[in-house]
């Protein structure tokens, strides 16, 4: 359809992004629309405040870590290509990709996904999940339900289970091993499922109050999936 290709021209660098991340045309368009919605002041890039304005994310226990994955500390703004690159982690794993190619490892390979998950834990970026980081994470998730001693015991047990070289912290390799071995545990698969339906004319923007926007996209992107095992 003629209309879709002209819409694609709106998106800067769409073709390169598609090649790099493997998203399809409709996906890119979806994401761009969402980007535009978040970017209310139409600056062309997103700032921290825009993320924090998403109300649901604020009540999410690890909301700040998720935002941190997008907006790295030290960088003020997030442009569209970076936005897409981070979300590329959530595509289903390509079974056809092989390691021997000259291209860099795509974002949705298993290792990259694991690394993304690892980075949610490892806030200071030293390549290890220390006791303190794990404690912080559990504190965020469990909230007021546990006392400090209980928390410490749980953390101690968790580290003991995964820590193979006994250095008191979980490195990325140990994390990978644990993810690979715990088949049933980490099979918690999540899928954000949409069906490709009709054209973009059917999308509607509904603005909530106080800056919360929830975009109902009737036509949608294809399956964005995050598979762990």
């Amino acid at each position, binding site marked *: 359809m003629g209309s879709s290709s002209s819409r694609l021209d709106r998106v800067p660098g769409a073709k390169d992004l598609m090649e790099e991340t493997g998203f399809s045309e409709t996906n890119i368009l979806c994401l761009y629309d969402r980007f535009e919605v978040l970017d209310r002041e139409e600056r062309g890039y997103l700032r921290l405040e825009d993320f924090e304005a998403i109300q649901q994310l604020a009540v*999410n226990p*690890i909301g700040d870590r998720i935002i941190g994955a997008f907006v790295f500390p030290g960088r003020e703004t997030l442009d569209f290509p970076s936005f897409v690159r981070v979300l590329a982690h*959530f595509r289903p794993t390509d079974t056809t990709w092989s390691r021997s190619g000259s291209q860099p490892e795509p974002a949705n390979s298993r290792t990259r996904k694991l690394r993304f*998950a690892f980075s949610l834990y490892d806030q200071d970026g030293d390549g290890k999940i220390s006791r303190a980081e794990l404690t912080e*994470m559990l504190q965020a*998730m469990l909230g007021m339900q546990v006392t400090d001693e209980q928390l410490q015991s749980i953390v101690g047990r968790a580290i003991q*289970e995964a820590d193979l070289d006994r250095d008191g912290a979980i490195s990325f390799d140990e994390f990978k091993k644990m993810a690979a071995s715990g088949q*049933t545990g980490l099979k918690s698969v999540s*899928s954000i499922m949409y069906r490709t339906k009709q054209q973009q004319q059917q999308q509607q923007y509904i603005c909530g109050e106080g800056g919360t926007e929830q975009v109902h996209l009737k036509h949608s992107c294809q399956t964005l999936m995050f598979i762990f095992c």
Partner: protein
Amino acid sequence: NETTMWFRKLCHRNQTLVLEWLVETSHPTFFLSAWIINQSEAPPEPRPAPIGTHAEKANLPVFTMDYPRIQIPFEVTLWVLLASFAKIGFHVYHKITVWVPESCLLISIGLIVGAIMHSVNEEPPAVLTSNVFFLYMLPPIVLDSGYFMPTRPFFENIGTVLWFAVVGTLWNSIGIGMSLFAICQIEAFGVQDINLQENLLFASIISAVDPVAVLNVFEDVSVNEQLYIVVFGECLFNDAVTVVLYNMFNFVAEMPVVEPVDVFLGVARFFVVGLGGMGFGILFGFVAAFTTRFTSKVREIEPLFIFMYSYLAYLVAELFAISSIMAIVTCALTMKYYVEENVSQRSCTTIRHVVKMLGSISETLIFFFLGVVTITTEHEWNWGYILFTLLFAFVWRGLGVLVLTQIINPFRTIPFNLKDQFGLAYGGLRGAISFALAFTLPDNIGRRQLFITATIAIILFTVFLQGISIRPLIELINVRRTNRNLDTINAEIHCRLMEHTIAGIEDLCGQWSHFYWKDKFMKFNNRILRRILIRDSRAESSIVALYKKLELQNAMEILDTVSGDISAAPSIVSLYEEKKNAGKPKKMFLAADLRNMHDILSKNMYKIRQRVRSGIIWIIFLALLLFIYMFSLITQSNTVSHFFMHLYFCGLCCKLSGRT
């Protein structure tokens, strides 16, 4: 020979007594009761005459017997015991149970007992009438399956489960029915009098995959979780479709013409049946959960509520002729979460144990009686029809799985590969439900006996052939297996983390999927449902719950590995103290290590059991021979009794002389 003579004398004397009583009471299962009463009788010696009485006056009876009074409970107990002994017997030889599923063994024993009863011309107890089966024997099994169903994988796969259950069963029924009708047209088989409606009715009976048979087989073969859940869920939920189809075709079989409005009504009825079943289940589940909120003062009868409410859900659903299996499964699913937080630890354990026990007994009895009744019913065999039924059942299931998986794979996050599909198709065993439904066929269907025979043939075929061969086949083609023992804190933490992450990303992208709904439901649950249904409604994260459970397991295992004296083990408190004082956390044995140590120790130390095992086999063999000898005496068949007597003594001599 002296021993033989003595033995004969004893049996003759007892034989007369037994015969007298048989005449008086004329009850069906005489042989067991006869044997047991015989054993319990005092050794032959003259009874002391009461002092100071005349010969003419009727003496005070010292020993009386009133069998009819206790007949029914007595027989029920004996049958249950017999089936349970059979179950114990299987585990004597460990190798058998590895390769042959228990259902096959039970059916075999049932066949043997049925043969014995048939040769003595006795009627089996009428337990596989449809009422007894559907009202008493089926609910415990379904409750067992529903209560122990893993909820998270189930809800993640619920679309697939419903798809296979509904569409799969429809496909199977209609396919098999049509093909059989086509076969009926061929003159050579002599079944031309079966019309389309009757064929469809029969097809709807045999297309239902049976939870009892399937679970029995699948539990030993640890396939991957997705496959297990889909097969499991399919068996439980295809009941709704089966009920509707069966009733519909039953109704229609009597009508000469089928109108389109009937088909439409059928569809409407399906929704009523399915949703009604689920609705009742949820209703009773919530009521049960609410009741347990107030039972803190009556801890002893807490488990009772669980059973009563689930059974009530089942019965009410049966009252309205809607899917009772779905009702009881949904009830158990809903109830479990809230009840386990309200009741005490002991009640929780009791509930789990009793549910498992009842389920196990029912299952054993069902298979056992399946074997018995197989021999004792009248059969009408028709080679063509039955063989083609087998063929079509197999073919249509395979096709069905193939086609349906192709359609639903794009919607699944973990698609089924070909091996999984094979497992799905091959694991479609038929069982007792089909059998009971066949018995409830109305008498005005001309070929009722043929249908019953064909149903039995299919059940035996699938349970024996597919049940026995599924394990080697699955290992051969290397279906993805699961390692079910991995229960770690890390896994739980990561699961939670992933759920939160995905929920967050969804919010970011402004798209919703089932995670959004799950999140919404959890919030609703926490805010409203828990407040109403749970006594102490502080939400406990699954991480904390799992941690507690694992710690408890570890504590028990530490105490376990210390041989013998628990008081010699270091107390948990002192371990904890040491741990706090030491800077680094002290190395505690991981659960897996402890288990390994335990295994090694027990395997190496108790070799003495080997010899005892063979001894038990001998005893069972000799006891069986003795049994048969008793019968032969009772039936006064001299040749048989001679033969068995000789066998018995040969066996005894061999054993005594040390040969095995």
